[in-house]
């Protein structure tokens, strides 16, 4: 790894404990900030850092915090989005398992910045170890006086609670996450009002991703300018990339924002298994449009990928080797979205089911010459026509896979046959959550 920032404690014995975190300089930023900084100074430093949200959207974090009204008489809430579920992504789980205090210190500093006295960490229900380590870290932080009443004699008080999800991808969308904390099914809200003005319990709320918050302690220790200098012109810091699929060394890699994709695959992930060529790469998690083999000479940052018609998303890089059936791959992705559609908006609820049905028909050898265009047409009627981005997330893969690998979606698909992939999905198209 070239620039070790976020993963500095990973791999140390007992890296998840307070003692190890403090020995590495942990909670010094909190001490410094609570002793002499105003909340506004924290916001300004994070703005200067060019930190952008790591959950997928890439929105500048300091600017997001700035939307919280300062004169509101209502309580303010910070929600930590630890509902990591984008296929191909597993960075936040690693942070919580290996260095939960880094996330906690970032949470406390960020809550201070927006004037919040209660924060909720929304953890995926399936994250047993990550949840246990986060809860243990919270208990340690209370015992040490980093949480609770009058933290470090600063007069500032904060409580942090863990709220577990229960198996629903959509709850990673920030307004669905808020609904879920309120004890409801995860149906995203119509915006505006935006959460910064009217969020959790009707109060001003900020929702930040685990990795985003984990960056905050070092930004405040070493300065926004230092952090900005680690990244590209418009996006500061390093990035946690998770690489999976057909590579020799799948795993979590902390790399500079803007690293060339091929360098990441060849140098860090050990190249493609079996010495095969790359057929395509999904660069940022299941919802990001696929890049074909001729598009792989690209830098991995928010703006470059956006310009190329894809997304950096959550940094989950999925490598598809030569021989992979793009039909089976897209069917797998779309079964996921059909299953996870919350059912609120017709274009997404029905569209994802239709897409799965058509792809299954093609797979059975009953496709028609018009199917590729029908698939793209359905996708175009979903994108931008739903309350939340799930419709868009399901449409992007359809449009990119079908337009870039069209032959495989025609009645007589090419010679390449299915991978072990695209397992039968008993609940495909189901709407139970």
């Amino acid at each position, binding site marked *: 790894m070239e620039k070790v920032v976020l993963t500095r404690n990973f791999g140390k014995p007992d890296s998840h404990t307070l003692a190890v975190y403090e020995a590495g300089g942990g909670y010094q930023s909190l001490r410094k900030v609570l002793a002499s900084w105003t909340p506004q100074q924290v916001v300004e430093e994070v703005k200067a850092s060019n930190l952008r949200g790591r959950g997928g959207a890439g929105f500048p974090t300091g600017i997001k915090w700035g939307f919280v009204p300062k004169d509101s008489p209502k309580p303010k809430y910070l929600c930590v989005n630890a509902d990591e579920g984008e296929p191909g992504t597993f960075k936040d789980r690693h942070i919580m398992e290996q260095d939960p205090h880094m996330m906690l210190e970032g949470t406390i500093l960020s809550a201070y910045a927006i004037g919040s006295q209660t924060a909720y960490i929304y953890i995926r229900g399936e994250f047993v170890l990550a949840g246990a380590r986060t809860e243990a870290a919270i208990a340690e932080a209370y015992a040490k006086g980093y949480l609770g009443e009058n933290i470090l004699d600063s007069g500032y008080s904060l409580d942090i609670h863990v709220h577990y999800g229960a198996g629903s991808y959509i709850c990673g969308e920030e307004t669905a996450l808020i609904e879920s904390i309120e004890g409801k099914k995860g149906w995203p809200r119509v915006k505006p009002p935006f959460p910064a003005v009217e969020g959790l319990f009707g109060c001003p709320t900020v929702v930040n991703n685990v990795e985003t918050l984990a960056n905050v302690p070092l930004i405040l220790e070493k300065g926004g300018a230092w952090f900005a200098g680690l990244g590209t012109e418009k996006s500061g810091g390093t990035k946690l990339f998770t690489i999976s699929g057909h590579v020799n060394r799948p795993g979590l890699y902390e790399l500079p924002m803007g690293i060339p994709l091929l360098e990441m695959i060849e140098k860090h992930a050990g190249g493609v298994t079996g010495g095969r060529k790359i057929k395509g790469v999904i660069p940022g998690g299941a919802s990001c449009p696929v890049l074909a083999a001729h598009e792989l000479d690209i830098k991995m940052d928010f703006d470059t990928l956006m310009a190329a018609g894809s997304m950096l998303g959550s940094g989950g890089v999925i490598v598809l080797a030569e021989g992979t059936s793009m039909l089976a791959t897209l069917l797998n992705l779309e079964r996921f979205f059909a299953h996870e559609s919350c059912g609120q908006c017709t274009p997404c609820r029905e569209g994802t089911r239709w897409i799965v049905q058509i792809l299954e028909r093609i797979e059975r050898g009953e496709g028609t010459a018009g199917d590729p265009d029908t698939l793209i047409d359905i996708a175009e009627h979903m994108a931008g026509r739903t309350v939340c981005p799930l419709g868009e997330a399901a449409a992007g893969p359809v449009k990119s896979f079908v337009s870039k690998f069209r032959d495989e979606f025609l009645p007589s698909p090419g010679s390449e046959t299915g991978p072990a992939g695209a397992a*039968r999905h008993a609940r495909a198209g189901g709407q139970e959550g």
Partner: protein
Amino acid sequence: MQQILPKKEVKKLLGRYPNKDAALMPLLRAIQMKEGYISKEAEQYAAAILELHPSRVREVVAFYSMFREKPEGKHLILVCESISCALLGSETILEHLKKRLGIGIGETTADQHFTLETAECLACCDQAPAVMINDELFGPVTPEELDRILEEKQKAVDSGQ
């Protein structure tokens, strides 16, 4: 009505939120951890504690896939079949388990030891293909390794652990 959880525990859960409704998910989670699933009686109990209409509770139990509405086997086997695991053979793993256990997806063996389910991405794509058995994650797994793991689990059940 039967008190499923100690009053103290309920009070602690309620104390985390400014209103009662918000405690619904942690309450259901606690009930499921204690009883293994959420029965119709448990839904009534949660509704009574939180002063909610029972249909509000029903809706939440039905929406979230981890809330289980019937008793399951002692070991719940989740086979991840999202894309990274699928690329590396989750279908083979699933077929092997179906054959070995003699059950389909969503079913439980006659001796109530094993329930087989599929799961969406468990966020361990670096360990693909991955399988979760109760709270434990295994990966990358082969059919042979799974046989060995299941034999150990079977022994643990047989010896009353």
